[in-house]
């Protein structure tokens, strides 16, 4: 798994590529924590190049969403979700707790 962080005026974006599973999940936690500990809570997660996402990744997204939405200070939104990963989100009931955008431009523009 690789992550690339891009800082925008109104939000931060993390592009996640490759596999997110129990092996790589700690690295994703670290990357997201870097953003929130710097006081930024509006986050776009670009999933256009993700290949696999296990429940370990789902747990990270839930925990980060809870953290970011506290005090209404921000939120995590998801962008460019591949079809098979979208099926994971739908099965896990994520569509009611995350906004999902077709592409990163509309996701960044939402903040």
């Amino acid at each position, binding site marked *: 798994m690789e992550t690339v962080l891009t800082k925008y005026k109104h939000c931060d974006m993390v592009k996640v590529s490759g*596999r997110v*599973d*129990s*092996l790589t999940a700690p690295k994703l936690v670290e990357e997201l924590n870097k953003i929130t500990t710097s006081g930024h809570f509006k986050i776009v997660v670009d999933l256009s190049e993700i290949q*696999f996402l*296990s*429940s*370990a990744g*789902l*747990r990270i997204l*839930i*925990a980060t*969403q*809870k953290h970011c*939405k506290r005090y209404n200070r921000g939120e995590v939104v998801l962008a460019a979700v591949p*079809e*098979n990963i979208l*099926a*994971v989100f739908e*099965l*896990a*009931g994520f569509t*009611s*707790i995350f906004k999902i955008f077709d592409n990163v431009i509309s996701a960044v523009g939402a903040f």
Partner: protein
Amino acid sequence: MPTQTYPGRYESLEKIAIFVRHEAESIGLTHAEVFAVETAVNEAVSNIIEHAYQGEGKGDITCTCITDPESISIILEDFGHPFDPSLVPPPDLNAPLKSRKDHGLGIFMMQKWMDEVHFEFCKDCNRLVMVKRKEKKV
């Protein structure tokens, strides 16, 4: 009936995925069905390492794939503590974010996306058998 043995470490997840994916593709499962199988196996192996072995590097995991033209059966065996995931309560997928629990999703995905999930606790090993048949809507 190919069988592979892997160390019970998270580095094994991708190797097991490649093995199982190859077997699932060999009988012509759709892309979505192969992804469902890969997801279920990943969750099962992660549970074995986390719960049966209670950590990495405590023992091996064997993976056997049995295929026929209509289905694939995956048998995972470990030699750790008996762990029955069917006792884990299902997640409440309609709960609001603040009360959303973050555990139980992996087992839920295994049960939803595979046609059969059985656990057997033998004297010397724990055995998980999962079956995926062709053309089940996922």
